[in-house]
Each structure stands twice: as C-alpha cells, then as structure tokens.
C-alpha cells in the first residue's frame, strides 16, 4: 500500500509536473497568507505582517528546490532540462543535426530491416504448435520407410511431404500449370495446425483407393475462388484427376513453400513397389511425443533401419540408411541461407559501427566548439558528472530520434530487401517488422546513443574552468579523432573487401562458359496430360510434332525437346553401373545426371561434340540403346582411352547402353559446377528414355528477335496439343541469370552496404579534416606568415588523416584476411584471398579520403595569415 502510494506520487510528479508545481506554489502561498493573517490578528499592520511572514518563511527559491528534491524526481527534472536544452541546440545547429539524424536513421533503418529478416528466417520458432519438438528425419525419403516408421514408432509421430510439384489444372479453356504439394494424411495434425475452415484429410486419405480430396492455400483460395465459403465440396481437376475441396488452410500456413497452391494426399501403396520403395522424393517430419528426448527418438529410428533394410523388395547396399538421423526442422529448412543471412547481418553491423563512429565524430566536433560553454558551466558549479550527463542526454536524444526515423525507414527497406533477396529464400513471407523488431530497434538506438555519446561525455569531464576558452584542442582530442578515423577506415575496408570478393565472384559466375548457347534461344515447358505421359511413344510423337511446328516458325533455325533444361531445378540423377568400373559389393553405384533429348539438341543449344557421333533419328525405341557422356566423365573413367563403345547401365534395368559420343561439359546442375555426389553427365535419346518425362522442355534457336516466337509459342503448341499446358516461356539468358540469383542478390546487397560505408567514411573524414582546419586556423596562419606555401599547408591538414586512413585500411585488410574464411563457401571461381579484392579497397579509400579532404584543404590554403592572427 505504502509502496503503491510512493509509486503513484512519483509518477504523478513526473507526469503532471506543472500541476504538482502549482500545488506547491499554492501551499506555500497559503502558508504565507495564514501566517500574515495570524500576525495581523495580533494587531500588526497588514503590510508589515506580510513582510514578517515572508521573513520567517525563509528563502522561497531554496525551499522550492528542496521540495522538488524531496519528491525524488530530480533525476527527471534534470533529464527534462537536458532534453529541452539538447533540442534547442539541435535546432540551432541544423546541419549537424540533419547529418547526425540522417546517418543514424539510415544505419538503424538498415540494421533493423536486415535483422528482421535474420530473426524471421533463422531465429524465430516455426509457426507451428510446440515447434521445438519438430524434427526432420534426414535421409529418410522413401515412402515405404516412412510408412513403416509412422506405423511403428512409439516415441514420435511421423508425417511426410513431397516438395512442390507442378500439375495441369483444368478450368475453362486451356489447362494451366499450378504448383502444389503432396503430403501424408496426418501432415497437418503432426504440424499441429488445422484448416481455417472445412476439414482435415481423413486418416486413410493417403491409402490407395481413398477418395481424392484437396486442401487449398489461403492466398490461392482468395485469388481463384474470391474467398467464397461455398468452395467446400467443389471439384478441382489436377492432371485429369478430380479432387474434392475439403478445406482451406489459414493465411499464415505456407509449408513447405508459399508457392504451394494446395495440398493433396500422397499415395502410400505397398503394392506399387516402384513408387513405394524406389523413388526417393519425400521428406519426413517427426514430432517427438511428450517427454521424449531427441536422443531416444533417434535411437528408435536408427534401431529400425536394419529391419527396414530387410523389407526392401531388392537388396539395398549395406551402407544404406547409415546417415539417417533427426535434425531440428527449422535448422534444416533454413540451412541453405544461414551463411548468407549471417554475412548480411555482419555487413550491416559494420555499417552501423561506421555510423556510430561518424556521429561520435560529429558530436566531438560539436563539443569542441562548446568548450567555452562547458568551462563556464564548471566555474558556475556544474560537476563534471553533470556535464557528462547532459552530453549523454543530447546524444540519446539524437539516437532516439534517429531510431524512430530509422524504424519508419526500416519498413520501406524491408520491402526492398524482400525484392532483392532470392525468391526461394525460406520463410521470407513470414518476415515482418513487429513489436519484437521495434523493440530491437529501440534497444539499438539507445545502445548506439550511449556508444557515440560516451566519448564526448568522457571528454567533457576534462573541461576545467582554468582552461581558457581560447584553448581549443588537447592532445587527447587529437588522439580520439585519430582513433575514430582509423576505426572508420578499418570497418569500411572490411566491407569493401567482402563486397569485392562477392562481386568478383558474381562477375566470374556470369562469365563462366555454361557449355551451351545462351543467346537467341527461347525455352518453354510443355506439360502434356496423363493420356500422353502414360506412354513414352505418345510423348515422343508429341515432341516430334511440336518440334516440327516450332522449326517451321519464321526465323527459327533449329528446335529440339528434352526432358529438362540445364540449370533447371529438376532432380535428374540416376544410379548407374559403369562398365570397367565395378563397385565393391554393398557400395552404392555411380550417380549420373541424366537428360533425355531429341537429336537436334546438340545443334540447337550449340553443345560441342568432341568424339564419336551425336544422337540420331535412327536411335529409336527398338534400335540398340545408346548414350552420350560429358567430357569430365570421359576423362574421369577412361583417362587414357576412348570411351566410345563402353557401356553404362541404369541399376534397375538389364540392358546396357553403349557410349557413342562425348560432348563438351555443360553446366547441368548449377553454374558452380557439379556437386561431389554426381559422377558425370549422360544424355539418352528421348526414344530410349528410362521413364516418360512428365514435362518436356522445348528449346528453339532463332535468327531474329525472340519476342515474336515467345508470343506465338502457346498458340503453336495448342495447334498440336490442345490439352497441353505451356509455361515458363523464357529466354535461355534469363534462365542462366536466374541461376545466379542468390550470388547476385548477395553481391548487390553487400556492395550496397559497402557503398553506404564508403559515403559515411568520406563524410567522417571530411568532418575530421574540416574540424582540424577550423581548430588550427591560427597555427596555419602563423605557418603561412612564416613562409609556408599554401600547398604545404594544405598537405599538412590532410596528412595526418591520410596516415590514419592508411593505418585503418591496413588493419581492415588484416581483419579481412582472417574473416575471408567465413565467406569462402559463398565464393565461386575467386580465391578467398583474391588479390583484386584485397588491393582495390585501400586505393579506393585513400582516394576517397583525399577527395573528402579536398574542400578543407582548399580552405586551409586560402587562409589569410593576417586575418587569422588578428582573430586568434
């Protein structure tokens, strides 16, 4: 009760300060009245009574001050006073205020925006119930294996999904391509989420013969169905199969991808041996039951591996399943972007540090100009602590205002950032600036205010009244200036080296030879309906018809079809045996990147034939099976002999395929090259494909402007196949460029931060040199009067700053040398100690330093010695 009263009174004294003051005045006045009245009633003259009353009262101003003190709000009163004073000061020095505020707003804004991404992608728990209990079973990706674990686990619930797949959606008119995910029937239940309305899949929805149901993505439902509630029970035809709409998921549910327009149950049919045990596509999510540790669930999962091994309808390698383990689901989802996010966070943190140094610099310039004021205050009784506090309040005022502006800016910057980041960044849609992020920005503002306020505040403590107001600099002041410039140059160097490495690497990637023609090639994806894809013959016939249609189009020089494009996201690895290279028993076979093509592909895409022959029209379903291999594979397996005539075999087939040709390397997998686990590239005739490709990639080389063909493509294919969907019409250049999307966005973002850093560093150096000239006007005047030439004087003012820049750049280079290790894995074709990236930044910084010092240098050279001596 008493505590509460205390708190209320203190709060009241802070919040209703003027009212409390008025009451105090009234109370003191009432006392005077009463005393005067009393004295008058004893016969004193009213005027005399008043005088006497005032005399017994004591010094009113002192009483007021003591009353304020006894309220316990002196702290706040000082704060208020300092804030008002600071505001007046900022208003007076508008250039300084504008520069400091702009710097802080930019720095806090970008840090907040990047942090919101960092936090939203890497740190936040997944938006599911009890997300800490969700794991991904790494390397568990066979439906059969999943089915066994789901049925038998006592410690955890297993669910499964197959990432995005594309379907032909039949509406009115021509079919459209649409992406969706196949999931196990218990998928939503295991994630702990229910449809916003409608119902979840029934528990046997993933069994063969179950009714076909579909659950819609919220955004898709809004766009496609106008958010109508009566969609439940309606039909959605996907790849010629009719699904009944069972429900709509809530807005925030976007797993495994925001691009999944719907979810349909996967089929778990043990009698379909190929699909059940053979095709490794699904991902398995594991939710630990109450009180179960990851270790226990892991042990259970691994304990089942030998038993599952025995269930396969064929013999699996002995090493199968040894890598299976549980990994936290969130870490798995964001694994690919962890390094990039950390790098961006580091880059923006450096920008923030430079900004803080800059503002500290500006503040020091300001306080130096106010030395006379401080000396006066100290001689009037201000304690050094009080002065320091005033300066800290002023810097906090700056940083908080800058922080508010920065937070507003962060909203705009985040929108930009979302556009700049690669579209496949996981969880990007979840990222937003919410209360937690705003709190972060607030903490950041206060923290940086304290940081850049500390130096000037510390230096203000040294203000002594004995020091004449004319003394304008101290040794310590020079030392701090030097340290600030050096630090700024060091931070900027680190950013410049980092962005240099990334930009150089990106440039190298853009100029890498992909092994195929990029210019004047138009591509598209053709998705036939199931009546076609059910038979390889029909698909081949379709490909020929479409190819001929394309080839006949004016300006088309060559056209071809293939199972998938180079650099496409499709998974095209096959397990193969290679003649002359038997694997030890139990070891897995070789993995070869496999593309099925029509004969014209080499010509259309300009892939060079190095040995033997290409694929010919004579290679048909019934002729001897043939295959082309890539150069690297030829060199790896037959280094001193010709591979022509050797054979390879798909592990699930009996027939061997004869190598008839070697082609030059093509960047099939990514511009970075082929991953370790792929042993080579092979090309089969489409007529002899191992399975019917669900889609065909069309490629056409044109002599003229490709846009005419791009526009006519849908019509041309419909003339041949009205039930085929055409999508992803794009030029090859666009596809190659998209393959470099992640390095591009990283290079641009870090480059952008480096640019901001450079501008800030230039402003900082300008400030220090300028301040130095102002401080040394008298000294420089003397030098000029004694015969120094203007150019000598100009050099003098910039000399020390330049040395500091060089020292900072050296320190920054040393730090970069060590830090480069951290981004080595993000680099391509560029060593982490790439000389260009390391040599350029110091040169740029020194140039910028000179440029920034140019104006003050000119001013120094133009000092009129006589005038400066008179003024001094």
């Amino acid at each position, binding site marked *: 009760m*008493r505590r509460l*009263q205390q708190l209320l009174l203190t709060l009241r004294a802070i919040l209703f300060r003027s009212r409390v003051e008025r009451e105090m005045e*009234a*109370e*003191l006045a009432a006392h005077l009245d009463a005393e005067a009245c009393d004295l008058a009633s004893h016969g004193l003259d009213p005027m005399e009574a008043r005088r006497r009353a005032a005399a017994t009262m004591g*010094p009113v101003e*002192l*009483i007021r001050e003591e009353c304020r003190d006894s309220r316990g709000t002196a702290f706040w009163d000082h704060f208020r006073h300092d804030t008002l004073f600071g505001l007046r000061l900022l208003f007076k020095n508008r250039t300084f205020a504008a520069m400091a505020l702009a710097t802080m707003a930019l720095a806090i804004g970008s840090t907040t925006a990047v942090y919101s991404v960092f936090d939203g992608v890497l740190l936040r728990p997944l938006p599911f119930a009890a997300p800490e209990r969700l794991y991904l079973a790494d390397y568990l990706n066979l439906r059969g294996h999943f089915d066994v674990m789901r049925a038998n686990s006592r410690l955890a619930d297993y669910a499964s999904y197959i990432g995005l797949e594309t379907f032909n959606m039949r509406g009115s008119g021509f079919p459209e391509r649409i992406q969706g995910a196949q999931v196990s029937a218990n998928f939503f239940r295991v994630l702990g989420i229910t449809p916003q309305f409608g119902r979840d899949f029934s528990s046997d929805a993933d069994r063969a013969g179950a009714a076909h149901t579909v659950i819609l993505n919220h955004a898709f439902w809004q766009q496609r169905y106008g958010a109508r509630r009566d969609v439940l029970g309606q039909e959605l035809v996907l790849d010629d199969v009719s699904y009944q709409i069972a429900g709509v998921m809530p807005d925030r549910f976007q797993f495994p991808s925001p691009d999944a327009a719907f979810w349909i149950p996967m089929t778990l049919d043990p009698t379909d041996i190929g699909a059940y045990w053979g095709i490794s596509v699904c991902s398995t999510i594991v939710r630990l039951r109450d009180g179960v540790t990851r270790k226990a669930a892991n042990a259970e999962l691994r304990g089942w591996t030998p038993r599952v091994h025995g269930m396969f309808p064929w013999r699996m390698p002995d090493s199968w399943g040894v890598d299976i383990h549980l990994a936290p689901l969130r870490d798995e989802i964001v694994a690919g972007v962890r390094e990039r996010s950390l790098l961006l966070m580091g880059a923006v943190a450096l920008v923030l540090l430079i900004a803080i140094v800059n503002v500290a610099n500006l503040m020091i310039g300001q306080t130096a100009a106010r030395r006379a004021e401080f000396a006066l205050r100290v001689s009037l009784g201000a304690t050094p602590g009080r002065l320091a506090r005033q300066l800290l309040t002023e810097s906090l005022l700056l940083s908080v205002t800058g922080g508010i502006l920065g937070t507003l800016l962060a909203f705009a910057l985040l929108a930009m950032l979302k556009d700049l980041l690669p579209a496949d960044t996981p969880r990007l849609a979840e990222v937003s600036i919410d209360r937690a992020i705003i709190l972060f920005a607030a903490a950041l503002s206060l923290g940086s205010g304290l940081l850049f306020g500390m130096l000037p505040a510390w230096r203000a403590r040294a203000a002594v009244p004995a020091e004449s107001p004319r003394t304008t600099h101290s040794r310590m002041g020079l030392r701090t200036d030097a340290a600030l410039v050096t630090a700024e140059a060091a931070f900027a160097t680190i950013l410049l080296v980092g962005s240099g490495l990334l930009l150089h690497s990106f440039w190298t990637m853009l100029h890498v030879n992909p092994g195929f023609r990029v210019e004047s090639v138009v591509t598209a994806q053709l998705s036939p309906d199931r009546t076609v894809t059910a038979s390889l013959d029909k698909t081949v016939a379709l490909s020929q018809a479409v190819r001929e249609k394309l080839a006949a189009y004016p300006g088309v020089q060559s056209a071809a079809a293939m199972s998938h494009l180079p650099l496409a996201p499709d998974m095209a690895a096959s397990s193969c045996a290679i003649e002359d290279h038997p694997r030890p028993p139990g070891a897995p076979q070789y993995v070869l990147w496999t593309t099925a093509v029509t004969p014209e592909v080499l010509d259309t895409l300009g892939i060079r034939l190095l040995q033997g022959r290409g694929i010919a029209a004579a290679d048909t379903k019934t002729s001897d099976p043939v295959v082309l291999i890539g150069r690297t594979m030829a060199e790896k397996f037959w280094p001193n002999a010709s591979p022509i005539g050797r054979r390879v075999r798909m592990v699930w087939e009996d027939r061997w395929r004869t190598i008839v040709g070697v082609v030059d390397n093509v960047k099939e997998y990514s511009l970075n090259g082929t991953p370790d686990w792929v042993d080579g590239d092979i090309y089969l005739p489409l007529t002899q494909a191992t399975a019917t490709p669900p889609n065909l990639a069309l490629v056409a080389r044109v002599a003229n402007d490709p846009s005419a063909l791009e526009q006519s493509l849908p019509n041309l294919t419909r003339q041949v196949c009205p039930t085929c969907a055409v999508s992803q019409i794009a030029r090859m250049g666009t596809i190659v460029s998209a393959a470099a999307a992640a390095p591009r966005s990283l290079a641009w973002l870090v480059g952008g931060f480096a640019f901001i850093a450079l501008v800030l560093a230039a402003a900082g150096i300008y400030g220090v040199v300028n301040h130095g000239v102002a401080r040394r006007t008298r000294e420089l005047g003397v030098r000029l009067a004694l015969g120094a030439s203007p150019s000598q004087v100009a050099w003098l003012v910039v000399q020390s700053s330049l040395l500091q820049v060089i020292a900072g750049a050296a320190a920054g280079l040393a730090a970069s040398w060590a830090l480069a290790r951290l981004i080595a894995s993000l680099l391509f074709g560029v060593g982490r100690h790439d000389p260009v990236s390391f040599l350029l930044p110091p040169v740029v910084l020194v140039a910028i330093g000179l440029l920034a010092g140019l104006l003050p240098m000119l001013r120094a050279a133009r000092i009129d010695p006589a005038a400066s001596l008179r003024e001094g």
Partner: protein
Amino acid sequence: MSKSPTLVQGTLTLLILKILELEPRTGWAISQRLRQMSNETLQASHGSLYPALHKLETEGWIRGKWQQSNGDRPTKIYSLTPAGRRQFAAEKAQWAKLSSAINGILESV
C-alpha cells in the same frame, strides 16, 4: 535541508509525525503547533517544514489532501497514514533509546 542548529537531524520528522498523530493539519498549523509545543525553542525556519512534509508524503507516512472550506482558498491538509503511525512508534522508541543512552553518558561523566 536548511537546518536550524537546534534541530537534531531526524527530529523534525519525529515531531511532525507526533503533531499529526493527534489530528490532521495544514502545513501552517503544523508550524504553529511546532512553535507552541517547544515553547518557541525549536526555531526551524517555517519554510523548511515543507520539503520535510513532501518527503514524508513521498515516503508514504503522511498523506496530503486538498480541501476547500467555504469560499476560502483550498488548503492542503496532512494526515497520518497507518504506515506513518507505525513509523512514529518506531521512531519514538528509537528516540527514547538514543536519548536515554546520551543522558546516561552525560550523567556518568
């Protein structure tokens, strides 16, 4: 606080609490009572009473209430809170102990 040399540190608090124990009063009435009770020996300047009152109020031992009596200016009446009552008892006991101890020392010499 501007202290009169005749007022030992802390005694003003004790006296204010004592005066308010009997009945709620205004600041001026407290100062009047202070003078009467001590036969004018305790000569605190009247003004110094107010910081002390505000301090006691902030501590939660007394509570000030603005009252308007017919047509006059509103005046602030202080009264003792239950916490103040306990504080008074404690301080009184403390004072008794202290003064008897000092008396004992003075008499023994």
